Structure formats: structure tokens, C-alpha cells
């Protein structure tokens, strides 16, 4: 595998990680809403989703720059 391909794979992996966090935090929010769980948990999860979206966006930007 050449360096470029290795690097692009790493960038893609780094972008998938925040996506994974977003998905799991959303699941947690669903659990809070469906069950009698503290609302603060949902609020924390929402904030983490917002941060993860920014991470994701930055990751996509890096991929775009790398491929141009």
C-alpha cells in the first residue's frame, strides 16, 4: 500500500470515528426519552453530537484537501 492510500485510509478512519460517536450518542438520547433516565444525560449527549459533527466536517475537509 503506498503512502497516499495509507494516509487517505487513516483520514477516512478518523472521520468515521465521530460518525460512530454521533450514532451512539443518538441511541443514548433515545434510551433517555424512552425510559425514566435523567435528562442531563440527553443534554450531554446532544452537546457531544454537536462537537462530533464539527470533527466530522473537519475530517471531510482534510480528505477534500488531500485528494485535490
Amino acid at each position, binding site marked *: 500500500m503506498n503512502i497516499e492510500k495509507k494516509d487517505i485510509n487513516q483520514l477516512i478512519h478518523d472521520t468515521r470515528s465521530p460518525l460512530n460517536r454521533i450514532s451512539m450518542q443518538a441511541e443514548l438520547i433515545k*434510551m433517555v426519552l424512552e425510559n425514566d433516565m435523567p435528562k442531563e444525560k440527553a443534554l450531554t449527549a446532544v452537546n457531544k453530537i454537536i462537537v462530533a459533527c464539527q470533527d466530522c466536517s473537519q475530517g471531510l475537509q482534510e480528505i477534500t484537501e488531500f485528494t485535490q
Partner: protein
Amino acid sequence: MLQVLLVDDDAEFTDVACQIIEFIGHQVWVASNLSEAQQWLSQQEFDHVLLDFMLPDGSGLHLIDYLKQNHLTPYVTLITGHPSVKGMLAGLCGPKVNYIVKPLQREDIEATLNRQNKNTKVADSKLPKLHFGCLVGESKPMLELYSMIKRVAKTSANVMLMGESGVGKEVVANAIHFATDTKEPMVATNCGALSKELISSELFGHEKGAFTGAIARKDGVFVRAGNGTLFLDEITEMPLDMQPNLLRVLENQRVIPVGGTQEVAVNCRVVSATNRKLEELAQGNIIREDVYYRLAVFPINIPALSERKEDIPLLAEVFLQQLNHENNTGFAWAPEQLDILKNNPWPGNVRELRHAIHRAFIMSEPASKTIQLPDTFISPFASNTRQSSAISAGQTIEDLEKELIRVTLNQVDGNKTQAAEMLGISTKTLYNRLHAYGDFAV
């Protein structure tokens, strides 16, 4: 409830995944890299490992290799970003490995854990109950033991486990750690296996360059145990002159690594173990009194297998199911075989029973569904014990005297003067007795 090990370096993901897995009803432990995962796997048994494919110190596949090498058989689910990993898994791993693709959803985790749960439930329904995830037995001595474990788990008291060799002292130490309900680690070390030179380094750690060969700094077991449990096996085999150092740590809760100057605070529960009897501890010069009282705040005697014979069929069932599980076989016990096992004395305790079952398992015809037990269970240790304690009603005093003389002469390679001294009789009396018994060969 499954014991799940989640291996992933993304702390935010593991945090939220833990909440979800616990909500589903399982217990979960976290490792952020391969080395931490290996440490967990060496300390306790897991039903399922959820494993990230890319880890800071290697690939998840390295952990699958580690499991194979160490004959560990949890279900493994690789968490991957590529569905293309499927082909690779089919070639590399067995039926107990699958994968889920990122981004994960709760259903993915639930489905993968529940599918495994269904399989284990079938076997579980036939299996005897596991107390604290590892102890088997419903006899009175064991129920008392469980009650003591529950009590001591609520405290931070140091525990000393006493019992014959093979009764399962490390398993009881695991049970105490389990009952403590902590995510902190349990670290085990064997004081009898360490040389005098290395024992300080193992227990207290060392600084880089502290001695020849100390190429890097190393934490000792007291530090590695964190707020968890430190299991010191064969504590009475620790050299007496090392015990003051141990006492200092037990009293001050601080260690100074070898070659270091800074004290490090420690806060673990120490569970120690010995197979010496209480009288030996008191009479023999093997453990300092002050160290004993620090370690044996809560002493626990683990019953010998001969004191809980009714548990033997339950243990036999668990051991056989484990072997079936590992080897994909379907052997079962016949009721009369369980009676044979129950009536054997097992001087080597649970360890000997397990060994005998494993041997019988290997010797059994794979096509048959029943285990083939040997005619006798021969153990070199058993014969020693039997020789020295084979007294039964109906034997004459003459027989016993003859046997005692024979055993003593054997012990001193036939030296009659020495034997007479050991027997507490004159050499002349010994000669007379030997003459009367027809000068039997030693």
C-alpha cells in the same frame, strides 16, 4: 448477564457504549489498547469481546491470535469501518468471530450480544450455578464461604485464604474481587515463584537503571492493582527478611520503587494465600506475626474437596461442559460415573479432579457420548498421603508399627541409627522389631 470486554481507543465511544451495554443488562469492562485488553483477559473470563479493528498498538486480529494462543474462547465481534473485512474473517477465524460495521446502533450491539446469549442459555440451563461468576458448589461449607465472601467484599479488609493445595485459592480471590463490584483491576503474583533479588522489584516496582537489567521503569504489583485487588499467592514462601518491607507498605499504604526516592501511594485490597496450616504458621518461622495480622484481617479457610463431596458431581458437570464447549463435543456423565468420582478421596482437591476429568476426556472415544473413566485415579501425591494416613479400623497395632518403621527407614535411606532416633526408640529395639518382622526389605 454476560461479561463483556470492550476494546476501543475512542474514550467517548466506549463511555456511551458502556452505558448502552449496561442498560441492555450486561457487565462491561473497557480496554483502550491491545496491551490493556490482554491484561484484562489474563485476569478474568469474558463471554464476549467487542473489538475495534484498528488500535493504537496493533490490529484487533492480534488480540484474536492472543486468545487462540492462550486457549481463551470468548465470542469476538470486530467493530470495523469496512464490511469487506468479512472475507478476511472467514479465512482467519472460527465460528465464534463475527463483525459489526460502524457507525453502530444499539440494535447492532444488542443483536450480537443476544445471539451469543441464546447459545449460552441452552448450556447454562443444564449447568450448575456459578457463584460470583466462578465458584461451584451448594454444600454447607461452600454456602458459608459465599457468605464470608459477601461480607468481606463490602469492606476493604485484607483477606488471607488458607486451604490445602488445589482447593482453588486464586478462584476464591477472584470471587472476592468480583463481589467487590469494581472496575479496578485484580493483579496476581506468586511470592514463591520470585527470586529474592526480584521480589522487591515485582512488588514495589523499580526505576530505570536501579540494577543491572533494569532498562526501563516498571510499576510494581501494588501500583498496578490501583484501587482493586492484589492477590499474593504462596505468601508464606516469601523470604522472612523481605517481610519487613511488605509490612511497611501494608502499614503506610505507600511504596518506594527499587532505586527510587519518591513514595507512591497505594490503595488496593491485599488477598494473600497459603497452603500452610494455622499451627504451622504459629510454630514455624515462616511468617512474621506483625505481617500475619496485617494480611489476615479476615482469614478464610477454604474447605478441602473431601469435606464437600456432594459438590463433586456439580464440579464434574461444569468441567465437562467447559471441555465440550472448547472442543465442540457433546460428552455427558452417566450417573454411576458421578458416584465413582464422588467416592474418590481427591487429596489433590479440585485441581486433581479437574486434571482427572481432562485426562478422561482426552482418552474417551470421540464417537461415544459418554466419558470413559479410568479404573483407578492414580496420583503421585495421593499415594504419599494415603501411605501416611492409611489407618483404618481392623488393622493391628503390629501392622501399623511395621508400616511406620518401613516408612521411616525409607525416609532415611535405611540408616537404622537415624531411623531409631526419629522413631524415639533405641537402635537395639529397632533391630529387635525388624528381626521380629522378618527383616523386611526397605
